[in-house]
């Protein structure tokens, strides 16, 4: 393992301190229990948005704390959900009288820890569970679909709505709607290496890819020989469009997300491939985002996320945002 490390047990804390200092105009990092919060509290009461999850997906979620997005983020250990006391402390720190909205990726550990954290609260709260990954079949009898790169889209759009001072119910309803309008699927070329393990999470041949991979390098739909970008994109898009079923002339947001080990040059190539397919299907790409936003440490590969747009979603996607990883309009 070749990584910037002093002591494996201190990686998270040292990284959080650096993150806090690097963005001290936007946010503040609190330690023990760890959470990231906005530098300045909003002047008017608003629904407080809190997300969190295992570390190793940076900039998700801490990079999205700031005006127009999250009020706080709780980072767990690498790939492990945060603990209930982190969630409780963050909630009491950021609430301003209009309730707490948790945005949680659909992974068992995240769900359970956020539930336990919420149980400890004497505050009004609701939870949006994001489950945009179309690689996994949804079912009420199983854990269901995973929450992946679409999570940041939900955070951006609901974050904007919350900034207007609307009610907790309205934010929750809109967030569930955006989640439903969003579908993602990814492919990995290499494994990631969890620092504490010191070796790759999975073995994968030099000519193989993991299709439908999750954001922890956990296996997806199938392992197969690598194909051309055109063929890979076509398969991913078939799955996503099959799930979202966009209508003719539907406007969409196309988000190409890198897992951490793939250059932007390739991500833009992937964007080009995806857009060609959408153009061909009379689906209009009117908003786009390309970059490493929901990563899996150093894993090579990427994912495609599509959100079906309506007027309200567009309005809140376009509105000003000022966070460490996403900034426009301010």
């Amino acid at each position, binding site marked *: 393992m070749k990584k910037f490390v002093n002591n494996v047990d201190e990686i998270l804390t040292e990284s959080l301190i650096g993150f806090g200092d690097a963005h001290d105009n936007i946010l503040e990092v609190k330690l023990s*229990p760890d959470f990231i919060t906005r530098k300045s509290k909003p002047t008017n009461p608003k629904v407080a948005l809190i997300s969190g999850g*295992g570390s190793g997906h940076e900039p998700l979620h801490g990079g999205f704390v700031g005006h127009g997005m999250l009020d706080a983020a709780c980072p*767990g*250990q*690498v*790939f*492990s*959900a*945060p*603990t*209930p*006391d982190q969630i409780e402390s963050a909630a009491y720190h950021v609430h301003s009288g209009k309730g707490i909205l948790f945005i949680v990726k659909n*992974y*068992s*550990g995240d769900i*359970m*820890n956020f*539930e*336990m954290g919420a149980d400890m609260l004497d505050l009004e709260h609701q939870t949006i569970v994001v489950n945009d990954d179309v*690689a*996994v*079949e949804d*079912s009420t*009898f*199983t*854990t269901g679909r*995973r929450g992946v790169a679409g999570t940041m889209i939900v955070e951006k759009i609901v974050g904007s709505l919350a900034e207007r001072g609307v009610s907790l119910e309205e934010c929750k309803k809109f967030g569930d709607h955006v989640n439903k309008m969003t579908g993602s699927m990814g492919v990995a070329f290499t494994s990631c290496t*969890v620092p*504490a*393990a010191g070796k790759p*999470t*999975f073995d994968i041949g030099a000519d193989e890819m993991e299709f439908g991979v*999750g954001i*922890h*390098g*956990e*296996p*997806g739909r199938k392992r197969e020989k690598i194909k051309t970008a055109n063929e890979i994109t076509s398969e991913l898009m078939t799955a996503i469009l099959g799930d979202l079923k966009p209508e003719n002339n539907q406007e969409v947001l196309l988000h190409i997300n890198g897992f951490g080990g793939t250059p932007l040059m390739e991500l833009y190539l992937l964007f080009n491939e995806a857009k060609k397919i959408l153009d061909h299907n009379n689906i209009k790409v009117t908003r786009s985002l390309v970059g490493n936003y929901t990563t899996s440490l150093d894993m090579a590969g990427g994912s495609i996320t599509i959100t079906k747009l309506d007027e309200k979603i567009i309005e809140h996607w376009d509105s000003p945002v000022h966070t460490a990883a996403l900034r426009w309009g301010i």
Partner: protein
Amino acid sequence: MDSEKIFNALNQIKISIDQHKDEIEKLDQEIGDGDHIFNIQRGIDESLKIKNELEHEKPDEVLKKIGIKIMTTVGGSSGALFATLLIGMSKKYNDNLSDPQNIAEMLTEGVEAMKKRGKADIGEKTMLDVLIPVSIELQKLSDQDNIKSIAEKIKEAAEKGMLSTKDIIATKGRASFLGERAKGHIDPGARSSQLAIEAICNTIINS
């Protein structure tokens, strides 16, 4: 005195888990993401650190405080679930850690709380495939006097439960995303739970 038993058992669990570290890590890498062993080890180590401050506490208080320690230091599914188990168990303690009937009641309470927390049951390829059969077996045996023979049978129930996870597909937890591909792999959470039960049983058998 009883509190010391809890920490002795925890020490034995640590030895066993550490010995099987690579195996558990490998199981998790096959059908999960490889963090389970580190979470388990962190939970055990953090719990052992509070041994001195809990020296004079009663067992239910010890279990509860270890539960809270695990809840606040481990994270992930295993942190939430083991914390729920221990805090649940602490609620049913009635002053005798050597009484099989009381242990059976405590375990049943803890396992029920876990089932609720994880919205899971037996046959879903999780740690509950070990813990549910163990709690049922213990209830059945709890009127017997020979504690060592109870421990032997509990060990067997745990092992059988652990092995049963091999040939089922997962419907809960991270392995559930794999569908058919999870077949043929033992669940890492079931293996670590079985090792813990085995370690506790061995301390009883060898005492």
